[in-house]
């Protein structure tokens, strides 16, 4: 069986309207993949940046997969949330990106989007906060029912991921 190691960090996020942010992340893989060690989901700390407005998390990722096939290559999905001084949490963006398929160190910028409500919902969101959220978070990384959604662009999540492959050459796979 071939093995894949994803070793790196969720570095931080930029381009969001406010900067007291945290991120819930997860890695989704297809049926042929088995997680051997590491955590496949987690939540970062909340960061209040003092210099500039980029929120830095430096959340480590160290997962080890074994696989029998190339389908279902790992996808990393993120949800960026904002925590205000009262402790309330508000969604600021959804995003996903595939884990890189060539070995080595990669700096990834994962773009995010926010579901957009109708204009009465947007008006109340301006005053009270909150906003529509996805009922089924699978939609973050699949394209199946996306045509029903209307969204706006949100900021970018920055990741640095190193990819280590084992025995791929043995099966004739070129990466």
């Amino acid at each position, binding site marked *: 069986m071939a093995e894949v190691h994803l070793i790196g960090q969720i570095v931080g996020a930029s381009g969001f309207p406010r900067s007291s942010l945290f991120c819930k992340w997860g890695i989704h893989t297809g049926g042929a993949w088995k997680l051997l060690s590491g*955590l496949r989901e987690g939540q970062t700390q909340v960061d209040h940046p003092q*210099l500039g407005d980029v929120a830095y998390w430096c959340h480590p990722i*160290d997962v080890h997969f074994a696989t029998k096939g190339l389908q279902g290559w790992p996808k990393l999905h993120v949800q960026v949330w904002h925590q205000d001084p009262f402790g309330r949490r508000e969604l600021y963006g959804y995003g996903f990106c595939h884990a890189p398929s060539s070995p080595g160190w990669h700096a990834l910028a994962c773009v995010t989007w926010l579901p957009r409500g109708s204009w009465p919902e947007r008006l109340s969101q301006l005053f009270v906060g909150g906003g529509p959220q996805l009922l089924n978070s699978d939609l973050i990384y699949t394209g199946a029912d996306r045509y029903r959604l209307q969204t706006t662009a949100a900021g970018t999540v920055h990741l640095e991921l190193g990819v280590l492959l084992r025995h791929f050459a043995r099966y004739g796979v070129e990466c």
Partner: protein
Amino acid sequence: MAAAAAAAPTVFLLMVNGQIESAQFPQFDDLYCKYCFVYGHDWAPTTGLEEGISQITSKNRDAQQALVWNFPIDITFKSTNPSGWPQIVVSVYGPDLFGNDVVRGYGAVHVPFTPGSHRRTIPMFVPESTSKLQKITSWLMGRHPEFTDPKVVAQGEGREVTTVRSQGFVTISFNVVTKDMKKLGYDVSPSDMQNPSIVSLTDGIHNH
């Protein structure tokens, strides 16, 4: 010459040397740093120092405002499994208004795994209390929140309940050499030439 074939290796080696070059903390001065390595169960250091404490440095009067340590790192690990790849955890300390030693930042980064020279600029953050009263009392008493064990910074569990404040950057340079990773079947770089156009989020930070 011996006719016996060489036995297949089961262990690979990772040799890292380099330095903690400098830091940028616009609000603080007179800082020193400590580093330590955090690694998984399958890893063991064979030679070199796992931890160290640097000198105390202060900013020059010129416009650069960098704090330079130039502090050497030299360690070799052996392992059977890339899981738990070593991370270097850096903690920076300095005096507060009343002269107590308080922590100014924690940061961690994985040791790069492609052989060659690498430079990383890592953001440094301190834990922060969420209540304003707690912040005032800690400023008066000189006891700011800190992690009981800096190695917590290298782990992902338990972070969802912490609030932190990022307030500086540290630049570290590494030279990495590995042995027997190819023989064990690991690919660490792509088949074609390495992509030179990778830009990290913190690349614009260092000004030298």
